[in-house]
């Protein structure tokens, strides 16, 4: 647990030191979100209909944008090598990094989501469902994304390649996440969607660190 705590602490510290980076991905989320009322025209019905989808897409993209930073810096300065040499199990500190990524990128989005949702004229219950779906769904994005980030480490065009690799796996999350709000609004209730997302979290929590560890070992070889 030594390495887990140390790396979690360090990554949070680094995030704090370069707050501007965090602000950028938050600003990105806000801007993508704000853009649609401009681009689509502000007809309330239409806004309400596309709102959850747009916010989910914005969150997904903003996660994607920050993913390539997950290991890149450590890889370049050799810290990653040192982490791989830790006597602690690799999956543990990978979880620490992913957790730090989620805390620093997704949580700020979660906090601002209700505000953004108001912009799309969503009502209270829908906002709650949307925020909850984001809260359960974004860890999946971070976990799966970590595997992609590890695989594309050091490859040219890494950012775009990463996007290509993980987007197919992100899409189901997006569908169920955005779908949950629809389901809620349509009266069928969002619990099935939430359960699926929850299953996704547990499943990716079990599998992705292992895949990620293997990918990191290959990438640093």
């Amino acid at each position, binding site marked *: 647990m*030594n*390495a887990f*705590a*140390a*790396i979690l602490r*360090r990554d949070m*510290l*680094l995030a704090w*030191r*370069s707050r501007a980076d965090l602000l950028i991905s938050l600003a990105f989320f806000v801007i993508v979100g704000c853009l649609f009322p401009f681009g689509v025209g502000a007809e309330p019905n239409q806004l309400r209909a596309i709102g959850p989808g747009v916010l989910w897409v914005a969150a997904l993209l903003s996660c994607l944008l920050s993913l390539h930073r997950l290991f890149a*810096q*450590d890889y*370049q*300065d*050799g*810290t990653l*090598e*040192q*982490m*791989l*040499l*830790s*006597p*602690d*199990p690799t999956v543990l*500190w990978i979880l620490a990094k992913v957790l730090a990524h989620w805390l620093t990128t997704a949580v700020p989005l979660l906090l601002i989501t209700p505000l953004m949702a108001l912009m799309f004229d969503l009502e209270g219950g829908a906002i709650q469902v949307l925020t909850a779906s984001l809260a359960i769904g974004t860890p999946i994005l971070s976990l799966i994304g970590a595997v992609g980030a590890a695989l594309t480490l050091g490859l040219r065009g890494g950012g775009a390649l990463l996007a290509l690799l993980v987007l197919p796996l992100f899409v189901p999350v997006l569908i169920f996440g955005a779908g949950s709000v629809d389901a809620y609004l349509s009266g069928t209730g969002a619990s099935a969607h939430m359960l699926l997302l929850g299953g996704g979290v547990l499943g990716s929590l079990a599998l992705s660190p292992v895949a990620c560890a293997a990918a990191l070992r290959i990438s*640093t*070889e």
Partner: protein
Amino acid sequence: MLQVTDLACMRGDRLLFHGVTLNLEPGQMLRLAGPNGIGKTSMLRILCALVHPEHGEIRWHGKNILKEREAFHADVLYLGHAASLSELLTPLENLELMARIACHRQSDDKACEQALDRIGLGERLDLPCKVLSAGQRRRVGLARLFLAADKPVWILDEPFSALDVRAVADLAETLDEHCDRGGLVIYTTHQEVAFRTPVTTLDLAEYAA
């Protein structure tokens, strides 16, 4: 203690060296020598299980290091070419992180500060590593040596580069001490450095393909 059998290393489609067989005992100091690009760095990375060798195996206390990776890593300290520093963190923060990751016996604030002091960075504790000079960055990495007395195997890739003359002598003394207490030091360098301990030299050029 550390047994290397018939090791071969391949990079891309080029065979760098092959047939390296070694048996290293406690207290020994091994220098990997050879011209640029012969494969010294590659060999060190194989020795600490970061890279799979093309052929051959390495045993630590009789166990294959690739199979018992975590147990082996508990006994190894590796300092590579790169400084392994986070640019935005201070030397102290960096050192602490490294000590924690590597599970050094001593990894608290106090010990880290002392280590930095001994390596000559006592007054530079609050600057981000980004602004340090080349030699100072190197020293942050080397400060780990003072925390890692309990790790028997030290694997160092060009530890002397960028250090000034004083620092080179100090470092040599530290390595000597490690050998005295029964540690094993494997290093590369292109500089001539004087040690108390007798140095075994392995010239990789002799094993080149």
